[in-house]
């Protein structure tokens, strides 16, 4: 079944997630969709699968325009989507998961379903036990189930959103085999990913997205450089960068290993010098977040040591890390960083060291006004934090940090900020560096990573690159590492 998208637009508030997308995807082919976080690929796929409605534009199947108002509409038209975190029912069995959503009578014909399921899975050499519970399966197995289910329901178009995140190499091989078989049977497959190697290997065609636009389409043989350039764009010329003078090591991570439901990170060795900035690059979900939270004392490493100034602090509780001058600034500002309903003054009172039993409101207001000025926050001491814009919330988060701080851990410090605010944020951070504070930050903006870091570490599926000197790294190199090449 050929799928044609004509002029699809989708906006979320001020963000133009899909800007006039026009594409054709042919049956029997595997269409690759490449792009970094926020490029618009997930949104487009959610529109195609009925989860969202497009603001403008048309979808055609085999030339006929169709309306997709809901996910069940999509399935009725034969379009099925495998989500990055497969949408299933964790505490239920494989067989039950299959049955739910299938149209039929009141009594499911369990034996029939079982039979069809076993037959189908044999074709792809899957090995799922129909009686096992979903929450005992690996991500790869859950994917397999979902693919089977969609096929069983009659899907002719299969969308796979970041399917190779969190599955083993063996499972990936099997997945690719399966996809090739399906393509051979005439299905239309859409493979959305940020992993260059996978996309180059598997796809018959690649479409590259960036900031809501379809910037280019390619056919094999693929040029990685060209793909990277399309994905990340050209970088504006950088200012002169001063090389960091070597100074004493304040933080050391020895053979740090972290484990998570989806990832394993093994053996990180890193020495951070006073005043050094280390950028953590990579697609979301590659392990940077877990690493930075471990540095903050929120996650316990399963192996390895963390040392501050030579003293071992591994395994100590979070507030101990805080007391030692390790400051953590989370990415979700309102969910984890700030307290909705409380004013700016309230936040500053909470952040400062307690002075007696009573709160001196006047002093607190004066302090807050001062901070508002210093950090250029557009708000008054009595503004409640949820009324501030994203940029001002970020400024607040930074303003809340105490001085002095030994190590600052920031998740996406300039996400959602305009250029001016971003530059301002970094000037404040650099100020701190001059006073000896080390900075570890996560960002998905390559320019930011290259420009501000002294050294860079790239994360890909739990694997970590050795620290690279930012001065000697190019956008291209970075892009390739982020896409998984060169590990």
């Amino acid at each position: 079944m050929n799928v044609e998208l004509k002029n699809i637009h989708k906006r979320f508030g001020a963000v133009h997630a899909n800007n006039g997308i026009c594409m054709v995807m042919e049956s029997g082919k595997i269409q690759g969709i490449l792009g970094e976080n926020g490029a618009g690929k997930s949104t487009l796929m959610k529109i195609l699968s009925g989860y969202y409605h497009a603001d403008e534009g048309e979808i055609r199947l085999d030339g006929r325009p169709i309306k997709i108002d809901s996910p069940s509409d999509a399935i009725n038209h034969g379009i099925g989507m495998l989500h990055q975190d497969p949408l299933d029912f964790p505490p239920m069995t494989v067989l039950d998961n299959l049955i739910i959503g299938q149209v039929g009578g009141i009594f499911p014909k369990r034996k029939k379903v079982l039979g069809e399921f076993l037959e189908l899975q044999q074709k792809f050499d899957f090995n799922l036990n129909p009686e096992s519970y979903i929450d005992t399966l690996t991500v790869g197995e859950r994917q397999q189930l979902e693919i089977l289910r969609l096929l069983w329901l009659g899907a002719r178009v299969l969308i796979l959103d970041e399917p190779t995140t969190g599955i083993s190499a063996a499972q990936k091989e099997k997945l690719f085999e399966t996809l090739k078989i399906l393509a051979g049977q005439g299905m239309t497959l859409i493979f959305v990913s940020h992993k260059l190697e996978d996309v180059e290997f598997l796809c018959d065609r690649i479409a590259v997205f960036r900031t809501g636009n379809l910037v280019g389409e390619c056919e094999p043989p693929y040029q990685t450089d060209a793909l990277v350039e399309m994905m990340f764009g050209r970088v504006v010329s950088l200012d002169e960068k001063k090389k960091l003078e070597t100074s004493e090591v304040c933080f050391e991570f020895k053979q740090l290993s972290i484990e998570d439901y989806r990832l394993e990170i093994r053996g990180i060795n890193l020495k951070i010098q006073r005043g050094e900035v280390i950028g953590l690059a990579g697609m979301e979900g590659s392990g940077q977040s877990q690493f930075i939270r471990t540095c903050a004392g929120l996650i316990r490493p399963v192996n390895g040591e963390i040392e501050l100034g030579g003293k071992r602090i591994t395994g100590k509780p979070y507030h101990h890390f805080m007391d030692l001058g390790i400051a953590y600034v989370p990415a979700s500002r309102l969910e984890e960083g700030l307290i909705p309903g409380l004013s700016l003054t309230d936040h500053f009172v909470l952040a400062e060291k307690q002075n007696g039993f009573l709160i001196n409101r006047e002093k607190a207001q004066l302090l807050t006004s001062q901070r508002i000025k210093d950090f250029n926050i557009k708000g008054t001491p009595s503004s409640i934090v949820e009324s501030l814009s994203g940029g001002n919330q970020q400024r607040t988060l930074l303003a809340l940090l105490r001085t002095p701080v030994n190590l600052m851990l920031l998740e996406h410090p300039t996400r959602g900020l305009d250029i001016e605010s971003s530059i301002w944020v970094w000037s404040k951070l650099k100020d701190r560096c001059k006073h000896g504070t080390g900075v570890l930050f996560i960002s998905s903006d390559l320019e930011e990573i290259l420009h501000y870091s002294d050294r860079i570490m790239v994360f890909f599926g739990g694997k970590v690159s050795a620290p690279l000197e930012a001065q000697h790294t190019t956008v291209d190199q970075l892009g390739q590492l982020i896409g998984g090449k060169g590990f």
Partner: protein
Amino acid sequence: MEPQLIFIGLAGILGASAPIIFAVVGETITERAGVINLSLNGTILLTAMGGFAVAVTFDSLWLGFLAGAIIGALVALVVAFSSITLKQSQVAVGFILAMLGRDLAYFLGSPIMGLRGPRVPALPIPILVDIPIIGPIFFNQNLPTYVSFLLIVLAYFYIFKTRPGLMLQGIGERPATAYVRGANVNMRRYLYTIIGGALVGLAGPVFSLSVKAGWKGTISGLDGFGWIALAIVIFGGWNPIRAAFGVYLFGLLQWLGLVLQPSLPNIPSQVLQVAPFPLMILTLLLVNIGNAEWVDRFLASLPDATRHFLAKLLRSLRTSPPASLGVPFENE
């Protein structure tokens, strides 16, 4: 004690537990869909009074039961509306309705206190009632009690063995997936809340028209049943059969309290009646404790054999609620 008396006692427990069975099964359905109806205590009192009032006024048992179901459904509708559409706290609305329902029951019921009303007749099933041991216990009951038996089985069957029942589990566990699979999550939540509420609404009349006929206001002995029912739903792991087991166990303990009364003259009857309630906390503790973090750490420090044994024990006791219980669903 003679075996005959024991049989009568056990049969009595089954009969006396019938109201709570209705309430527990009804609430299990509602909570499976992801909604907590905390108003049970008030609803049961209100429907007991209301059902009795209607039955007396129209001299019809059927109308009495119907009235109970309707009232229960209406209260549940308020809960559903406030929480699903207005997105207010389910706990807050439920608690207020529990208080309001109770006061309404006492207020509106005071004129009819002490009246004699129709009473559900006993309905022993011929032939079956003559089976030794099982007969007098199970088949010498009345219609509502038989219905309660059926209800347990039907509810279990519906939830776990039918297609719409599986979707019911789905909307409580992961509404996003259910939505993607084509279910109108909020509409189903309304539906199941109302159905559950209607079943809870039947609990009242089963009490005031059968178990302890009549409406006696504050001393009817019904106050508190609603809270117990809520706890038993949790104890039952949101499974009608396991929950029924909890109900009968509770009934057994209450009966034991009555039976042991003469041999323990120092302890007033009220205490023994109330005694099973603290057991409720204990059971909740047992089923929840497996989920606590410190338990995991503690287990890690034990020797292997002990740890395996304890872990297995805890896992079998552990119940986890439908993951989306109490969380409103919004798509997009």
